[in-house]
């Protein structure tokens, strides 16, 4: 774990499926559940729509953590998008951690439209995990192309 800069707050991007998890986030808001403000939400039609590139690019662009959330198995609005997503993410998560991305940068969850409480809980957990890891560095692109060989 590295030293954390002063006033640093984790920046987390959350890809939420519009039918369940996004509605769950909505419910959390409507029910005035307090949850960590570190999450920036991107609404997607389905967790199956989340191209693994979205996750990798987010990390490359400097997100400290990524959360992908969709409907519970069996509840996908498109009947099976989340099942496909589940397979992809299983592989991707292992691969990212294998190449040396810290465990705890990338998270997945199932949150239904009625689970406002769960959404708040997941977001808080994710935020705390990422906070403990500190700012992302490993895959982040800094790109000082300087015209001189290494």
């Amino acid at each position, binding site marked *: 774990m590295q030293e954390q800069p002063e006033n640093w707050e984790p920046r987390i991007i959350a890809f939420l499926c519009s039918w369940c998890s996004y509605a769950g986030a909505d419910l959390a808001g409507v029910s005035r559940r307090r949850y960590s403000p570190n999450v920036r939400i991107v609404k997607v039609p389905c967790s199956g729509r989340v191209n*693994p*590139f979205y996750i*990798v*690019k987010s990390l*490359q662009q400097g997100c400290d953590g990524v959360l992908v959330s969709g409907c519970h*198995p*069996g509840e996908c609005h498109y009947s*099976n998008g989340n*099942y*496909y997503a*589940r*397979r*992809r*993410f*299983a*592989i*991707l*998560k*292992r*691969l*990212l*951690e*294998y*190449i*040396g*991305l*810290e*465990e705890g940068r990338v*998270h*997945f*969850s*199932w949150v239904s439209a009625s689970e406002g409480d769960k959404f708040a809980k*997941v977001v808080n*957990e994710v935020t705390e995990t990422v906070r403990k890891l500190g700012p992302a560095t*490993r*895959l*982040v*692109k*800094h*790109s000082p*192309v300087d015209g001189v060989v*290494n």
Partner: protein
Amino acid sequence: MDLQTKLRQEARKLLEEKLVDVVIGYEDEGAPLRTTPCFITDPQDVDRLVWNPFCDHNLARYLTARKDKAAVVAKGCDTRAIVVLINENQIERKNVNILGMPCGGIVDRKKIYNHLKNGDVREAVLKDKVITVKGLEFTADLMVDDFLADCCLSCRHRNPVLCDVQIGENLPPLDVKDEYKKIKQLEESTSEERWEYFRKTLSKCIRCYACREACPLCYCQQCFTDQNFPAWVGKTTDISDTIVFHIMRAFHTTGRCVDCGACERSCPNNVDIRMLTKKIAKDVKELFGDEAGLQLEEKAPLSFYNEDDPQDFIK
């Protein structure tokens, strides 16, 4: 009769009887420790075909863009790639005639160069299982089996899984103690160590895309690296972009990679590309029980699902 003679006979027959338009195989152009792909259309040229442990290219690479009917010389791993290509509707079974070669493993030239302390091999003669290499200042007898490519050392499909004609008898299965030994070793190290390992090996990458071009399963009409709208990966040698390129290329081979090693052998800078693809193959097997390219009509593991797939990583 040796396999090479049998192979030539078979190829001659196919061309003479006009069963195929071309035979894609290997020929020896005189470069030591190497063969080169050849495309034979005239039955009189079949004697150019060779079969030896230097036949390292995965010729399935040449099948996807073809409109004609081709016979292809294919080792166990190559036939697995062909199966994947057929399953993914990239080639039609009827348009490819597979000359299946049971394969005892191919030689990794780089291992020989390494052994010879980067000595300049000017001549290499193979006799039985012994390669006599000659340089200007040295001569050495090397055993083929001591210099097999890494992918061959953990190969569990040495015989063709699909072919029209098999040249030679099946080889007994290799006693593979631990197919994923190197992967497991790396998995057991710390996250920092793994990052350092990949950062180091991938920093040698010059983004020439030979790995992609040598891979029979990298057939996308436009690779994500070439897309600019959006530009998924930066085009510079920035290490972050290079790592992203390799992560995503490897990811695209999920459940499809047959571990023929073509990517790694093609790399001019010795990047450990298989350490990524093999890891994914291992996970696919662990998580979904699948192995790529073993039978026709088999679906790639990311193109279907089971309701009870593992999901302990999901909150």
